[in-house]
């Protein structure tokens, strides 16, 4: 219950700052451009596709690249949204408002996380609206679209949890943003290590890589391993954030 109160306040605060609006606009603009150029590409190759057996459909050619690119754009954008969640409150000394209210740390962290997720969900709906518009003129594969949407949601959820944790570590939003970006990028490129040779190390790194679990979902393959991977990632960083806030109360600073 209290979680929702904090989530609501967080969402409202986001929309009170110009940052949220600017981010929504910029992300939509860039992805719309990508989407349109992808449609253009599809229209160019359509005559050749018509002659092929088992030709890739409109979903493979337009939706998968769109969601793939959206993941990269959001990797850049989410740290900017998460950076202020806790660090700004710490800098303005407003954390004590919640610490002296009858709330648990878990409720505070979950509230902040859900508030941000509500905003990100809105952003994803706006992104998904573009391929849905194809329904007017074609028949995209709605199953693949749904699994891509779920994949992107899980992905940004993990981004948000990591960003939230980074934000609990510092009182400087910029530091939180940079370190979140660093961690996300590292998780993204983790599977590059030893990718040529195979072997055990590459399997481990491959499993840890945040991207490896996203790609199957873009193809419409829903594997519970991927789902659990993202869930574990979120829970881990949310628990770490709760622990960090608790430590703040125990250690003072």
């Amino acid at each position, binding site marked *: 219950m*209290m979680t929702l109160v904090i989530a609501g306040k967080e969402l409202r605060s986001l929309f009170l700052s110009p940052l949220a609006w600017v981010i929504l606009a910029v992300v939509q603009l860039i992805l719309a451009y990508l989407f349109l150029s992808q449609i253009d590409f599809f229209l160019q190759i359509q005559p050749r596709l018509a002659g092929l057996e088992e030709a890739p459909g409109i979903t493979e050619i337009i939706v998968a690249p769109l969601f793939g690119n959206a993941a990269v754009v959001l990797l850049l954008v989410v740290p900017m949204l998460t950076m202020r969640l806790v660090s700004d409150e710490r800098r303005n*000394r407003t954390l004590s408002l*919640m*610490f*002296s209210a*009858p*709330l648990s740390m878990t409720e505070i962290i979950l509230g902040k996380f859900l508030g941000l997720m509500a905003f990100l969900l809105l952003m994803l709906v706006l992104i998904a609206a573009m391929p849905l518009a194809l329904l007017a003129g074609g028949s995209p594969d709605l199953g693949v679209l749904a699994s891509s949407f779920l994949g992107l949601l899980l992905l940004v959820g993990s981004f948000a949890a990591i960003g939230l944790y980074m934000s609990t570590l510092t009182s400087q939003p910029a530091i939180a943003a940079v370190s979140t970006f660093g961690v996300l990028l590292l998780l993204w490129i983790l599977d590059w290590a030893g990718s040529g040779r195979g072997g055990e190390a590459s399997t481990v790194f491959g499993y840890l890589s945040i991207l490896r679990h996203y790609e199957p979902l873009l193809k419409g393959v829903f594997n519970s391993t991927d789902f659990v991977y993202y869930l574990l990632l979120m829970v881990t960083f949310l628990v770490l954030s709760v622990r960090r806030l608790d430590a703040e*109360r125990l250690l003072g600073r």
Partner: protein
Amino acid sequence: MLPTLRDRRARAGAPVPGMSEGALVKVEQLSRDYGSLRAVDKISFEMARGEVLGFLGPNGAGKSTTMQMISGNLAPSAGRILIHGLDILDRPRAAKAHLGYLPEQPPLYRELTVDEYLAFCARLNCIPRNRCRDAVETAKARCGLEAVGRRLIGNLSKGFQQRVGIAQAIIHTPAVIILDEPTVGLDPIQIREIRALIHDLSREHSVILSTHILPEVQAICDRVIIINQGELVLNDTIAGLQRRMEGNNLRVAFRQPPGEAELARLPGVVEVESLEPGRFRIHCGGGGDSTDAIVSASVANGWQLCELMPERLSLEQVFIQITQTEAHADPGEAAA
């Protein structure tokens, strides 16, 4: 204003220090370390319902640390805090429901309006949605914020921001309100208004107030606690403090002054200090006895006593005496 203050004290009755029944806040052997630095050292005190408790101490004495611990913002290194009989570490949620806290820097979201902010605070403190509006209106009325409800907190003056901070602390009508230096950085008129507000609050709530402005304590508190270097050095009622302030010094002046030695021989006189020709400060051991002795000696010896005045210490002097004796004692301890 003054008569009402006296009325209130008379009504509340002078609370006895050490009284344990019905203690609203009970602090036992509270300590807090920052690394190797001990910021608060085994502080114990109790506070009764309806009391206004003044926390005094020089900067860095541990006032804010103590208040942060009582409000649940900081975990104590050792000791216990009971609020309404509830341990703030074991049952934080239940204990915090009885607490309102205004930190040194009011925790305000500058991007929200006063109404939005107070509504959020009300919800945070578990006030149901349908009673939220009433709670906000009541808090605003009590803190004189009716006119600024729709303005952004960031655009308000410091005095109004402080009031919003107090409104936030009282929105759920807690039994205990903790105010950390509520009048710091305000102009004299705002200070008066905030004091009147605190006085008003003390009708229904118990208030713990930290400050280093001494007249403030005299004006609004029932009881005073002085902390120095993390230790509790005084816990007394205002009446007790007044007695301390009376002191046992006399200022006397004679037209035909005797020698200092002659005065020092009088019964009850401990020390004589010559201020200017014919004027002395006499430190007495036994209070009124030496006044009599001085008067009769003056008559008998023809010193022509023309001035006799008991000297009152100001609260400031008491404060400095108490904190400095501690400070003198400390270097020895540190060396040992």
